[in-house]
């Protein structure tokens, strides 16, 4: 409730903090994403039905604070994209509803999540914010920002490498503000990234597109 009073306009994708992991790919494309960090373990699968919309499933095991799990379908939308000569700006939303499970307690839950990013082939920035309500189990607002650079501009058949810095603000966790340096590799439709956070936890994320 305290967090809800903060009432920040919402921004992200459900799941993924994987910066490259936009919640929409291409029509008929399927994305599977999994992340492990100081907040817990997440898995998401999304199917893109039109250039602007995708549907999927989101599940997360929360840690570093209250331990519970969240599960439910989500609806993703591309609110706006600006295609620039050397870059791209996007605003996405992901909204879902399902169930939160805390031991023997089950509660209905809902979330909305916005992601805004700007990227070129050498520079990446993003901001995302997620508001989640799960009745007596937990309600929270979580924010994340990322900046990154690529040491070289990878072409289509190259392995791309990125170095990033991620800052998380999740007031409901034991570690409220966490900074994570990250190295990311991706090749065509496969992405891997790893980091070590200021909370002394290992971060490991992957994504595949089909």
């Amino acid at each position, binding site marked *: 409730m305290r967090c809800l009073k903060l009432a920040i306009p919402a921004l992200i994708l459900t799941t993924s903090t994987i910066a490259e992991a936009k919640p929409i790919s291409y029509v008929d494309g399927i994305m599977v994403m999994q992340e492990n960090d100081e907040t817990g373990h997440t898995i998401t699968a999304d199917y893109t039905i039109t250039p602007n919309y995708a549907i999927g499933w989101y599940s997360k095991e929360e840690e570093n604070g209250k331990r519970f799990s969240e599960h439910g379908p989500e609806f993703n939308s591309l609110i706006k994209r600006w295609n620039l000569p050397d870059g791209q700006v996007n605003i996405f939303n992901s909204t879902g509803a399902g169930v939160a499970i805390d031991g023997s307690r089950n509660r209905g839950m809902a979330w909305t999540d916005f992601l805004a990013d700007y990227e070129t082939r050498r520079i990446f920035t993003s901001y995302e914010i997620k508001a989640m309500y799960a009745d007596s189990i937990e309600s929270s607002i979580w924010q994340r920002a990322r900046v990154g650079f690529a040491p070289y501009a990878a*072409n289509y058949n190259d392995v791309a490498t990125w170095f990033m810095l991620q800052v998380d603000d999740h007031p409901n966790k034991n570690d409220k503000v966490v900074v994570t340096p990250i190295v990311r590799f991706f090749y065509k439709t496969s992405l891997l990234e790893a980091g070590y956070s200021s909370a002394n936890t290992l971060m490991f994320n992957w994504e595949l597109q089909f």
Partner: protein
Amino acid sequence: MKKIIIITAMIITMASSAAFADTIKVSVNGLVCAFCATGIEKTFKKQSAVDQVNVDLDNKLVTINTKPDQKLDDGTITKLINDAGYQVTNIARGK
């Protein structure tokens, strides 16, 4: 002699078909990563008229080779690129 005539006819037929295959170079805004490229590649490969697709991120260029005697008009190309989430800035054609 008969074999020579048949082979010559086949070569002429192949050459003539090849002459009708198009190479289309599409300049695109918003191409920043391999994920973008894959979306465009998969979108065009679904088209029966398309033989090969190549995405060049350095030059922001999508090169499409059509099958012999198959056409892909500018309107269709623009729509497919737009549907993949990107913006066409120029379309150039050559044989």
